[in-house]
């Protein structure tokens, strides 16, 4: 139980160091802040808002990514073009686009979603495309042989066959966008009195309610762990691992 050791060390440092509550609050007050903000609904509202933003961005991102991937599958020229674009934009951290988002969309939800979509589509396109490209020729021919055609062939053979790669794409898309979200919210703040977890941290720091800052960080970590180590891990267990499949690399 490393977590217990970690918490003990924290508490020791706080008690021995005699820091101000404003710099390094003790566990008790962080816990109280967490409970209090959950009870008051504050934490829930902000978390919900963060999820609302990321959900919207995921929706837009997935649709865009699949349209672009489909186009790339149809035409080799578009595929080359997509590859170049993806190579250029994929390494670009979403937050780096903040100034441009500001210029284009102003302060508010739209800018954040713009940044999130950016951090979602490139890894998704990259992995989905690789997955589709490396679908086994034999399996495709078996599909055609038993009478599958067109979209049915895509949904019944290509998508499941590319699923390990698609899942990898979603995992990267999620972790990219979750990180970008918190950062973007801090810089953009809230619009119309609403804000996500990033905004909550920013606000609480502003009012010097440091225990709440740590409580919000704690929630962000927990959500990250839940999504990556529980949600995605569970999907992986039920699909890819059960099927004995692995994500394929670009040939």
């Amino acid at each position: 139980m490393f977590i217990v050791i970690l918490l003990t060390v924290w508490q020791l440092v706080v008690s021995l160091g005699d820091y101000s509550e404003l710099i390094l609050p003790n566990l008790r007050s962080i816990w109280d802040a967490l409970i209090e903000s959950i009870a008051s609904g504050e934490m829930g509202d902000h978390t919900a808002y963060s999820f609302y933003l990321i959900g919207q961005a995921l929706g837009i991102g997935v649709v865009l990514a699949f349209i672009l991937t489909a186009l790339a599958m149809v035409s080799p020229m578009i595929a080359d073009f997509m590859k170049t674009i993806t190579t250029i934009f994929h390494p670009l951290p979403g937050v780096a686009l903040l100034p441009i988002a500001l210029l284009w969309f102003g302060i508010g939800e739209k800018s954040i979603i713009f940044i999130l979509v950016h951090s979602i589509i490139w890894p998704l396109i990259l992995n989905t495309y690789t997955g589709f490209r490396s679908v086994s020729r034999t399996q495709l021919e078996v599909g055609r042989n038993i009478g599958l055609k067109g979209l049915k062939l895509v949904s019944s053979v290509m998508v499941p066959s590319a699923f390990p790669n698609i899942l990898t794409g979603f995992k990267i898309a999620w972790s990219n966008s979750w990180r970008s979200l918190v950062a973007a919210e801090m810089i953009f703040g809230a619009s119309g009195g609403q804000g996500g977890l990033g905004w909550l941290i920013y606000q609480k720091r502003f009012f010097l309610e440091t225990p709440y800052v740590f409580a919000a960080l704690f929630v962000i970590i927990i959500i990250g762990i839940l999504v990556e180590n529980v949600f995605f891990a569970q999907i992986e267990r039920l699909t890819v691992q059960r099927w004995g499949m692995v994500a394929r690399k670009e040939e």
Partner: protein
Amino acid sequence: MAEKVNVKNLFVKFDGEQGDFQALEDISFSVKQSEFLTILGPSGCGKSTLIRAIAGFQTPNKGDIVLDGKNVSKPGPDRIMVFQEFDQLFPWRTVMGNITYALKISGMSKEKRQQQAIQYLEMVNLQDFTHAFPHQLSGGMKQRAAIARSLALNPEILLMDEPFGSLDAQTRSILQSELVRIWQKVGSTIIFITHNIQEAILLGDRVMVMSTAPGQIKEIVAVDIERPRLPETPEFMKLWHRLYSLLETKRFGENDDKNMLPDSD
């Protein structure tokens, strides 16, 4: 017996980087109902191209493939292919699911699918592995499952492209005799590709020998040996040597004047 498949003057050409390559040149032969035809040839003789053309995966440049009096050009469930590759089962479906899914596409009712799948899985001795996923099976078991799936679809003709080519010798010989047993029971029409002379004789009613570059039919030899066939018998050995020399003349006879070995593949 009635002719099941008729291949007439088939030509297939590939546009390679070093010019065109005539994979198949003027191939004509026919297979009778319930006949087991093995096609024997060295690698690169176009035998895979031929079976892929019959399956509809390879469009010929010229010629016709006639199945039951009708021209065929696209893949269809009337000609089911068993591949050499072990990944021909869908890894995201169980052994059972692979078969029932194929039957579902063919439009069979749900209870019938289950029944049919179990029946054919029993036939290939996989009844204990119905709910296993393909990655849990050995290579030989995967090929059995693929054969069961193909047979369950009850195709007009079964096309087998070296299905035992990647198996170890023992598994291979077990599957060979099982295939003969099943074929005798079901009475399907089979075209079976191999580059193994013994396999060609063990399985086929007739052996069609092909030669390389361009891929042509060298000779079609009837196998008049009682089943079950044993490789140690004199008549088997005699036929083996005959087929061997048919393959050999290609390699060292016709290429001798160029004083070089043929390109592998």
